């Protein structure tokens, strides 16, 4: 897990632990000092998610199976006004941002516990796509599509049995 913005170490450790537990694997956390200015779109006042996704593999020399870049900035793709994160289906890389996961953005009280829970779900969700999983119809499954933040709160942080079996049976 590549920390591409400034995050509290304990926060990163907790996200990595939860992700590792879900995928039953070790998660290594690495900090990267990425200059985000080239990815900024002044017209949209957001950062280009497609380009960030393509760039993050260049930010680490470590060997990895799956790579997820974690950001604090507001990211977008050309066709959508915003995204929480994105991945390429069946490939190795994904990105996620906490920008729109923060309660304060919606005029509510800061809630670090909720932010951690949302971040864990978003990272597990995007990594699920890298394993070839598409959106799941199971309401509790972490792979259920969430287009607004409250939807993230409604689902669990775990893969349902069906999605878990798909990963076990050949989805890479």
């Amino acid at each position, binding site marked *: 897990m590549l920390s591409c913005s400034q995050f509290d170490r304990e926060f990163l450790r907790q996200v990595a632990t939860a992700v590792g537990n879900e995928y039953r694997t070790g998660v290594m956390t690495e900090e990267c000092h990425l200059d985000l200015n080239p990815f900024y779109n002044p017209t949209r006042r957001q950062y280009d998610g497609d380009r960030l996704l393509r760039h993050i593999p260049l930010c680490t020399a470590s060997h990895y199976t799956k790579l997820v870049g974690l950001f604090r900035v507001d990211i977008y793709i050309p066709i*959508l*006004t915003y995204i929480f994160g994105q991945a390429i289906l069946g490939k190795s890389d994904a990105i996620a941002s906490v920008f729109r996961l923060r309660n304060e953005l919606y005029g509510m009280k800061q809630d670090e516990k909720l932010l951690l829970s949302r971040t864990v779900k978003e990272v597990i969700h995007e990594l699920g796509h890298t394993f070839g999983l*598409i*959106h799941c119809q199971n309401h509790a499954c972490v792979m259920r599509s969430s287009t607004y933040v409250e939807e993230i709160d409604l689902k669990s942080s775990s893969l349902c049995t069906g999605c878990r079996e798909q990963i076990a049976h050949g989805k890479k």
Partner: protein
Amino acid sequence: MAEKISILIVDDEDSVRDSLLNWFIEDGYEVEAAENAKKALQLLEHRVFNIILVDIKMPGMDGLELQRRIKALNSESIVIIMTAFASVETAVQALKDGAYDYVTKPFDPDDLSHLIRNAGAQISLSKENEALKKRVTTLEDIDDIIGQSEAIRRLLEQIESVAQSNSSVIITGESGTGKELVARAIHANSPRRYFPLVSVHCGALTESLLESELFGHEKGAFTGATFNRKGRFEMADGGTIFLDEIATVSPKMQIELLRVLETKSFHRVGGNKEITSDFRVICATNRDLKTMVHNGTFREDLYYRLNVVNITIPPLRERPDDIPLLVNHFIRKYCTSMSRDLIAIEPTAMKQLEKFEFPGNVRELENMIERAIVIGNGREIRLKDLPMGREAVDSPVESLEEIEKKHIEQILSKYEWNVSRSARALNVDRVTLYNKIRKYGLKQKK
């Protein structure tokens, strides 16, 4: 299992196509993309997409013109127009031309999800509506078994008792006796009537086409298999499958059929997944299957599997008493469908019909009446409106070719030059009809 909704994205910007493609793939849709209208139309020549997202501003043909072309190809596809710069004029024009919605880029992710979900719901409703219409037609069709002769009374009794069971049925009878009608009647009276009746005309398909038609295929299974397709056995789940001209099925397909009838499970062509379907099978043939078994051209085990109940439809010449009833039925049917007042029939014309042998059976009689109504004076069917009367009445004598040409012309004009429907009405295949159109130099009048 519901079929996947297919989406086509048409936009000249790579980033837009890629983002949408990725988004829809993650949502489990079947997606393809085209960078301009020309490429989109090429794709649409080969397959149908449920939803088509079209950018309004593209080099070459713009989105509004593409939408018009799409609607001309398939009016059921849902077109959503995308634009970076919304204007009231273009939005109104797009909606007037039949667009489902008009959206401004970039989209809110939640709006996009709702838009596609709602369009998907509309597609499901349309499909359901179509299926219900077909079922209503099936239920109406039973009234078409006309007759008071002993043979017909026996046939109706047989239909009633067979309908309640789940057994396989073979319907035998000469061409034109109404085998499909009997199959429909059995289905319409059975507990399976609220599920589909799926018909397959085995004789019209080559072995490989029949295999893909019956079992379906997976995308890439063979050249031209550009998308997944359900087979007829899968479509008939819960209902009945009607296999017409079963005697024409090849030995290889006979083995396949036997296996499916025994296990009620199969694989799509090129697929690994076993699919099960609960269907009842009704077959029809105008050939003597028992002789074919004896000659070794039809498998004995398949014959016994299919021939649990055998229904034989008598030829029309064996029940001439039914001819007046049938004539009046067809007069009513065609006058209603052509929005005309009911017409009578000259007693001499009726007498000639009662004497006629009808080698083409009820279908021949039906075509004769339909033709007589089309060419007649609108008050009554005269002897000279019928083929057997024309020779005596008409002067100068018309050749068979001239009569054929006129008749084909009338049928084509009746069905507004829809070749498939006209071929069905004439009881010939489409290739034969095309050849006749060419031969007689027939052209649609503008």
